[in-house]
């Protein structure tokens, strides 16, 4: 058993212990025990209703991610390649990114109504800005010596962008996508909290309404596992982009 494996097991054990202690300290009305939570999670995964909610969330999340990634990278590339536009937009993007998106929720609900398009909109506005910002910076931060090398080799703009700028910027773009996708998931779930009749966020709201503590924790735990997996997968993609396959 490697030291890393041992550490991971110790960490998992530590988290469980802390969780159990917390449960004992504040009681089952605030925090359910790890065991009860896991049991409930398994129970939920056996119901059809749960998977219906999960599918609703997943499809909204998937669509929102695709839009946020495509639009974010597109915008970021354009701003990164056109220096003046990038300089103009940089503080604007930064400010919009730092605005709490909750201020836009009423507006989105008014525009999209209740339903899946509001969910997707929530997701997209959360994810698109970090992706655009990271992509723009990735392109701008490509080492100037790479551009000079391309010019000495007399490469066309297209060839330079495709064979040098793209792979050079890719690691940082993937980092942006990681951050953006995590936030898109958050946005989709929030959308479901406020604006949906299905989905895991909606299930959470229902659980919160009747104060079903175990349900709340079980669903949150499953969401967390899903988010962590997506994040880990993107982490692998990022590492490959850095090494160059």
């Amino acid at each position, binding site marked *: 058993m490697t030291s890393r494996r041992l550490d991971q097991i110790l960490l998992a054990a530590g988290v469980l212990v802390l969780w159990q202690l917390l449960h004992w300290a504040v009681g089952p009305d605030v925090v359910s025990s790890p065991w009860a939570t896991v049991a409930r999670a398994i129970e939920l995964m056996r119901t059809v209703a749960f998977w219906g909610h999960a599918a609703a969330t997943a499809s909204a999340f998937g669509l929102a991610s695709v839009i946020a990634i495509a639009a974010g990278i597109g915008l970021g590339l354009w701003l990164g390649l056109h220096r003046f536009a990038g300089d103009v937009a940089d503080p604007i993007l930064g400010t919009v990114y730092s*605005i*709490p998106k*909750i201020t836009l929720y009423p507006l989105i609900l008014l525009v999209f109504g209740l339903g899946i398009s509001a969910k997707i909109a929530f997701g997209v506005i959360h994810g698109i800005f970090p992706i655009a910002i990271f992509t723009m910076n990735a392109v701008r931060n490509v080492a100037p010596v790479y551009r000079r090398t391309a010019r000495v080799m007399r490469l066309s703009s297209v060839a330079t962008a495709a064979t040098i700028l793209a792979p050079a910027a890719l690691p940082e773009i993937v980092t942006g996508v990681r951050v953006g996708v995590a936030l898109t998931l958050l946005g989709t779930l929030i959308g479901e909290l406020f604006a949906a009749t299905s989905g895991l966020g909606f299930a959470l709201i229902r659980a919160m309404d009747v*104060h079903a503590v175990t349900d709340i924790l079980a669903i949150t735990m499953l969401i967390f596992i899903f988010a*962590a997996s997506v994040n880990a997968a993107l982490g692998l993609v990022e590492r490959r982009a850095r090494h160059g396959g």
Partner: protein
Amino acid sequence: MTQWHLPVAKVAAVRIGVICAVVAALEILCRLGTIDRVTMIPPSEMASSLWDILRSGRFNSDIFFTLYNVTAAAVLAIAAGFFIGAGLHALPRLRRLVVPMLAAYYAVPTFVFYPLLIVAFGVGRTALVVMGALFGVVAMIVNTTLGLDHVPPVVVKTGAIMRLGGARQLLLMRLPSAAPHLVTGVKLAVAYSVIGIVAGEFILATAGMGKRIAFSYDNFDNRTMYGMLLLLLIGVMIVNGALSAWERRLHRRFGQR
């Protein structure tokens, strides 16, 4: 050696132009009715609503409620985040394990814990403040560890050669070295605290700006809603802008690492 100078003034002018154009377009579309009043009121009316709110002081209690909560949550997030971050930095094995969890943290809608916090702390500001702090703490942790990472070993060696004691080393050498990243952490912690607090006020509206906005939304009082939203937006932009300016100054002074 700078070989040339970017046309800074021109960039700023174009930027202001773009922003004005967007606002003007919204104003026109709203006035023309292309965007109906139920969805959005013209920006000029948002501004006048904001002015009314400030002048009349009708919602001062809500505004100060939120302000107090955000400040308390931010302070808590910054302090806790700093100590946890410094601790993780000192224990690299623990850190390596915790990092993936931290990365996934912001995908979890942390405010689902809000009802649980209320049961624990009772209805009132404590639950809200803890909520806000929970939101912001991870950003501070991550940036603290990052900042301490970026303390160059040579700085520590210099402190050792000057025979500085542990506390003075920390204060005089490590903290200033990590300052740019710490300020980034502060900026993010504040921003996330705002989100946490206002989201909490949305969900379980007892008082505060979030409550006022949700209340107006439910009662179709778009004027008040947009006025309050504008106030929130401007407040956030001012605070964030100030912190960003400080951050930029530190990065410039300390050099990019």
